């Protein structure tokens, strides 16, 4: 039963980045079902102000309701979501889609004056890139440009 529910959830997409599922993003933290067949899905928000979160909650309800389940979606804040939870598959899909995935191993994200990470251009794979703006088209992205292929691109920034 749980596996069926997880399969349904693995089809729910992130509304802002439709190549990623909420599973790829690591948003779903827990799935349970009680004796009366009521499903509880525990999710965690990505960025605090991300407007996609409400849509994601609605989409989860819709997907499970359509499959005949009654569902309750619960949001937890702790442990806070981190880009480290993004799946390998998700990272690859992001790059293919034209968004550079979060640089791995940036454990210390707390530095007040951290250097911008070295990011690979998702188009031509060059490392000769530079940060244009720490803030991009959505709260989770920075804006970069590539000096080799001259294309601008989004970088999914680490939190």
């Amino acid at each position, binding site marked *: 039963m749980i596996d069926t529910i997880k399969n349904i959830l693995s089809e729910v997409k992130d509304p802002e980045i439709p190549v990623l599922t909420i599973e790829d993003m690591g948003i779903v933290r827990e799935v349970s079902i009680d004796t009366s067949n009521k499903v509880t899905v525990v999710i965690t928000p990505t960025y605090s*102000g991300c407007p996609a979160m409400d849509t994601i909650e609605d989409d989860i309800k819709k997907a499970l309701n359509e499959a005949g389940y009654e569902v309750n979606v619960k949001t937890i804040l702790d442990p806070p979501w981190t880009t480290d939870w993004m799946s390998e598959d998700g990272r690859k899909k992001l790059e293919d889609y034209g968004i550079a995935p979060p640089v791995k191993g940036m454990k210390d994200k707390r530095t007040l004056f951290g250097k911008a990470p070295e990011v690979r251009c998702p188009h031509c794979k060059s490392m000769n890139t530079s940060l244009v703006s720490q803030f991009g088209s959505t709260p989770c992205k920075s804006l970069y440009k590539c000096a080799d292929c001259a294309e601008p691109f989004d970088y999914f920034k680490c939190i």
Partner: protein
Amino acid sequence: MDDKTKYVLRLADNALILGQRLGEWCGHGPVLEQDIALTNIALDLIGQSRMLYQYAAECKGDGSTEDDLAMKRDVFDFYNVLLVEQPNGDWGHTLVRQFYYDTYNYYLYEFLCNSKDVRIAEIARKSFKEISYHAQFSAEWIIRLGDGTDESHERVQRSINDLWTYTGEMMTPDELDRKMEAEGVGPNLDDIATKWKRKVNEILDIATLKRPEESFMQTGGKVGEHGEHLGFVLAELQFMQRAYPGMSW
């Protein structure tokens, strides 16, 4: 209202009012990237204020919702510091306000990540990484403008001086701050002040800007005594609920 609810409202009101101020830049930034940057920061702050208002509403326990707290209180029931309600002014002025606030907010939330109040700690841990991006952004702009052209230097120095009088309130503890400190919920504000001064001095030095002399500090926001500006901010923020009470979409 008990002390903790009031303390949570202070945190929430700071985030909401500054977020609303930054939102005023939407469509008016000097270049697209910076327009987007300020609205992104606004979105983070408003998102953080929602988590805090939800908690404050639960603490109040009288059936209030996060929306009631944001949309239905009047000026004297808001507990944000005076700094965050100050008008945007020019780009540099907005960034000075942001730099003063972000530096405080960074050290405040660093502490709150380990607050004895479990829910505040959860919200702080969720917010802290976002806040560190804000602090980095505003500090970089102070350096760029201070160490920029003669005109940018002169204008940003003026903003540094003009807004200085609103910086003391954030780090001057009142009775409620001391009580929260004693309970391990909030920080020792003298510690925050020491860290804030060190960071602000460091950035102003790099930016070739002069730190203002110690002078009179404005206070009142934390207990609901505001300047004329907050009323205008709320008039816009709360317009729909005032004109069409209870409306939703």
